[in-house]
């Protein structure tokens, strides 16, 4: 099976039962993507496929052959952090950090959805042309990512600082 992860090509022999999450962690040693609940409830495993956020734990790897996959390792590194990673530090968007890679991948996918006008359950005007990422909108759109440390307020601030305010971090 052929995979494209963070711009690199990989040919792997995999059991059809292997999830995309286990493939990334166990076969490619990309352990930034985390296994939390392994049933789609917590969002710790969120990665981007063709720019769209998905839960890697519910994805069979075989379904994601030949499609560009981006994990937290593909967004930034210790030398050059992604703007959202810098904002998470500036706004205390984490304590233990376990949910953080999923939060960051999810927020990047979420921002793309909002930019193309995808409404949410709390959007008042369904036919609006532009999404305003208010506090309530961000909380709703990020509800698929849990933080058991309770850093949600910092997470919302970091995302707002990066994708909403002019003075982005």
């Amino acid at each position, binding site marked *: 099976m052929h995979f494209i992860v963070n711009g690199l090509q990989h040919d792997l022999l995999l059991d059809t039962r292997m999830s995309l999450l286990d493939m990334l962690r166990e076969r490619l040693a990309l352990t930034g993507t985390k296994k939390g609940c392994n049933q789609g409830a917590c969002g710790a495993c969120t990665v981007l496929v063709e720019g*769209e*956020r998905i839960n890697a734990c*519910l994805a*069979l790897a075989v379904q994601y052959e030949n499609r560009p996959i981006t994990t937290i390792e593909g967004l930034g590194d210790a030398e050059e952090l992604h703007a959202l990673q810098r904002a998470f530090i500036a706004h205390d968007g984490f304590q233990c950090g376990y949910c953080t890679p999923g939060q960051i991948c999810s927020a990047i*996918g979420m921002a793309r959805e909002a930019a193309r006008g995808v*409404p949410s*359950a709390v959007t008042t005007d369904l*036919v609006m042309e532009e999404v305003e990422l208010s506090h309530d909108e961000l909380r*709703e759109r*990020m509800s698929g990512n849990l933080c058991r440390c309770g850093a949600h307020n910092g997470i919302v601030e970091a995302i707002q600082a990066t994708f909403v305010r002019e003075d982005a971090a």
Partner: protein
Amino acid sequence: MIEFGYARAGSADEAVRLAAGQGAARYLGGGTNLVDLMREEIEAPGFLVDVTALPREICETPDGGLLIGAAVKNTALAEHRLVRERYPALSRAILSGASGQIRNMASVGGNLMQRTRCFYFYDDAARCNKRSPGAGCDAIDGFNRIHAVFGASPACVATHPSDMCVALAALDAVVHIEGAGGKRTVPFEKFHRLPGGRPQVETTLSPGELITAVELPPLTLAAQSTYRKVRDRASYAFALVSIAAALEVRDGKVHDLRLALGGVAHKPWRAWKAEEALRGAPAAEAGFLAAAEAELADAAPLRDNAFKVELARRLIVTTLSGLAQGDAA
């Protein structure tokens, strides 16, 4: 998870052929429910036919409705301009379900095929007629606050978990199906089954049949429709009770309406009795309440879920009142 074979289909015909050549084959969409159930070994298909590469088109039909390919992702359907304008209840229903990640994975066909979230169905230490036909049901006398108040049977009190399907039931959708014997269509109302004595059979699909599309008929009043959902937390939770409603008022009277409830039965519950009671009646709160009572007279709550009847009553009245006052969508 048991071992399984896997093949990717490029067309509906190919998918049906691939599945026919295998014993216990299942069609695989986004996998958000099936993969989880396979991991729990509640589902154990020997072969998966991946249908995510089938066409993902949403097209207008000649009569002004919409034909939605079964492989269309939930997000793509919810954000589609014509769905937002003409069938806002459907957009709202989809957006109130699951999370952003799951809506990006999940397909329209898969949404119809979702299985119940009954705790006892998932718990292999519990008895469940749906998981092991004939084993008995631990939900009937168990913790059953999330369970059905309509149409249940002594064999099963589970509910259907979908939000999208409640809107499709209200909007007179039609399911397009293809199997080895050819193509056919089924009114949405007849797609899902009540449990009866065979709760393991949840739809009227024959073995090997594939959902290829869902069609929305042109429905003018659907532009004045909405979806409301009551749940244990504000986001990312299944419905306790939900409602999809469309209402057209003329000269102070209910000219036409569509009403369906979620979270209350083994299938999306089209509220035929409420609709009948209200058609032609004054569009006022007393009438909405009478319509709710007409529907809820049949409710048969269990030990823990009588609150759903009161919730449904309030949801029907407040949702219709809101639509009558013009706060559509």
